[in-house]
């Protein structure tokens, strides 16, 4: 169990000149002891780099890493006492399940009885007690990943468990089982868990707090709720949600917003600055409005799709497409008709230079 502090930047080049030379732009973050965090972002955003720096497999080119206040920047993974689960199962083929789980403890020279007890406990937690004497090589992928996980959990004093997209090779119908297992383990053992993924469903269901990253930069650290309601950056608004946030360019002048050729009253008490802005509203919050309502725009309906659990309406206003989600039973206008959508509302976010305005 450890409180991890990061204050670093990382570049694979010896003399980085500009932002694009950095794999990780300068950042400062704290991971609370016992918390479950997800590092979420598209491929190449630097999340695996950050994970490897935390585990000690990579030394950051600038800055430092602290575990419980102790500087471990140059310490080996062993010294930091972390565990890491990789994308594909990493097990020792020649050993049985029990021997695999016992391996880290044997290397630390724990007494035999202690090892057996720990292995038994972890195997039970992972529901693998019946397979302890089987050869690890012959098991299915999800069982092997559980063994990889078990090898990390079997050490009692493990500081943090780091996951690098561990469910990639697991069959989809087994993924939710493993995810549930992870949550259970977190609940029981209260370890610091850090989970790297590009799948937002995984991240949002697993973690208490999610770190959204893009191109080496930390965009936002927050609860799934905060990320959904108040994305700090346009990227976060776009990335989170299925589909992501709708954005409309607007001009703010003298209390009014010019949006797609329509002049709308700015919401009272908002105090938006003058100039070019982006209006962001999630499909879940784009409601149908009365024609001419304040803050609503007329749009031409392009398409209505029945997805089963919800309906998706695609409408065009000016040159922009808006997407809105509705309950399955709601009556929607047909394609070609005009619909008024409530763009400005309580859940609407405003962005200037891609950053959220308070």
């Amino acid at each position, binding site marked *: 169990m450890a409180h991890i502090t990061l204050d670093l930047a990382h570049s694979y080049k010896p003399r980085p000149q500009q932002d694009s030379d950095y794999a990780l732009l300068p950042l400062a973050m704290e991971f609370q002891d016992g918390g479950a965090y997800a590092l979420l972002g598209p491929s190449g955003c630097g999340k695996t780099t950050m994970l490897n720096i935390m*585990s000690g*497999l990579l030394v950051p080119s600038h800055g430092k890493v602290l575990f419980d206040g102790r500087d471990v920047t140059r310490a*080996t*993974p*062993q010294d930091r006492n*972390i*565990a*890491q689960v*990789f*994308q*594909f199962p*990493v097990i*020792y*083929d*020649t*050993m049985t399940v029990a021997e695999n789980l016992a*391996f*880290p403890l044997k*290397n*630390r020279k724990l007494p035999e009885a202690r090892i057996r007890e720990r292995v038994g406990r972890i195997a039970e937690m992972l529901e693998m007690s019946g397979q302890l004497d089987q050869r690890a090589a012959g098991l299915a992928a999800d069982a092997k990943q559980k063994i*990889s996980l078990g*090898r*990390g959990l079997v050490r009692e004093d493990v500081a943090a468990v780091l996951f690098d997209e561990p469910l990639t090779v697991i069959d989809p119908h087994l993924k939710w089982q493993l995810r549930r297992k992870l949550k259970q383990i977190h609940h029981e053992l209260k370890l610091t868990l850090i989970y790297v993924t590009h799948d937002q469903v995984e991240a949002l269901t697993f973690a208490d707090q999610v770190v959204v990253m893009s191109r080496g930069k930390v965009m936002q650290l927050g609860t799934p709720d905060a990320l959904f309601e108040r994305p700090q950056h346009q990227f976060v608004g776009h990335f989170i949600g299925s589909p992501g946030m709708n954005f409309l360019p607007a001009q703010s002048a003298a209390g009014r917003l010019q949006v797609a050729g329509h002049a709308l009253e700015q919401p009272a008490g908002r105090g938006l600055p003058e100039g070019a802005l982006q209006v962001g509203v999630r499909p879940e919050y784009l409601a149908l409005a009365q024609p001419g309502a304040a803050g609503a725009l007329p749009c031409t309906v392009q398409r209505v799709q029945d997805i089963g659990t919800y309906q998706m309406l695609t409408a065009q206003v000016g040159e922009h497409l808006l997407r809105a989600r509705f309950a399955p039973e709601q009556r929607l206008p047909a394609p070609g008709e005009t619909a008024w959508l409530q763009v400005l509302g309580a859940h609407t976010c405003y962005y200037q230079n891609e950053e959220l305005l308070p």
Partner: protein
Amino acid sequence: MSATTKPVNQKAWFLILPVLLCVAFSAIVPLMTVVNYSVQDIISPERRVFVGTEWFAAVMRDEELHAALWRQLTFSLAVLLVEIPLGILLALSMPAQGWKASAVLVLVALSLLIPWNVVGTIWQIYGRTDIGLLGAALQSMGIDYNYTGHASDAWVTVLVMDVWHWTPLVALLCYAGLRSIPDAYYQAARIDGASKLAVFRYIQLPKMRGVLMIAVLLRFMDSFMIYTIILLLCFILYNWMQRVGTTAKEGAGHE
């Protein structure tokens, strides 16, 4: 590789027909001939008597043959005992990437591409005390080395020559096996606190098992070829000499 099973298609036999023709021409026909000769006593081209397994029995009983077979087995074993560990060690020492990897690869593989008689020539020169580096060096160190005079010197020279020639094959096979191990295994081992020996024993060696078996098989079979050359040359040549009418000799199979 696709997990689905391959479709059954008997017409595929047409695709492998060229291969079968070539190999049949090169292998089956000659093999039949050899088997044919080995069960006959050819007194003259016209008079052949089928004698069944008489030749084989005679050959098996031959004392000199037994001695030679024993020597051969010892040689093969010695070769394997030296080449396999040396090859593994070499594979572990070769760099994994960059220009150095290519350069080392070419230098190591060089001895595999030398025609076998040139290998013999190289070592023949190398071992001489008058014009060879090794011979002269050993002589100046006071060691009495003469590979044409002493049988044990010759044996050691042949062994060293074989090691020099063929260890790169083992090394290259193991090298490829090692390169196929993903980094994550080494990382996991570091995190688990495994020692270097444990890494070798539990990660590298198991992954090399496949290629190592091929290497052992190849080297063992190839080292036997030296024996078969001698046996076959004498055995079959003897039969052939009979066929073209030279006087017969008593007994069978001389070294």
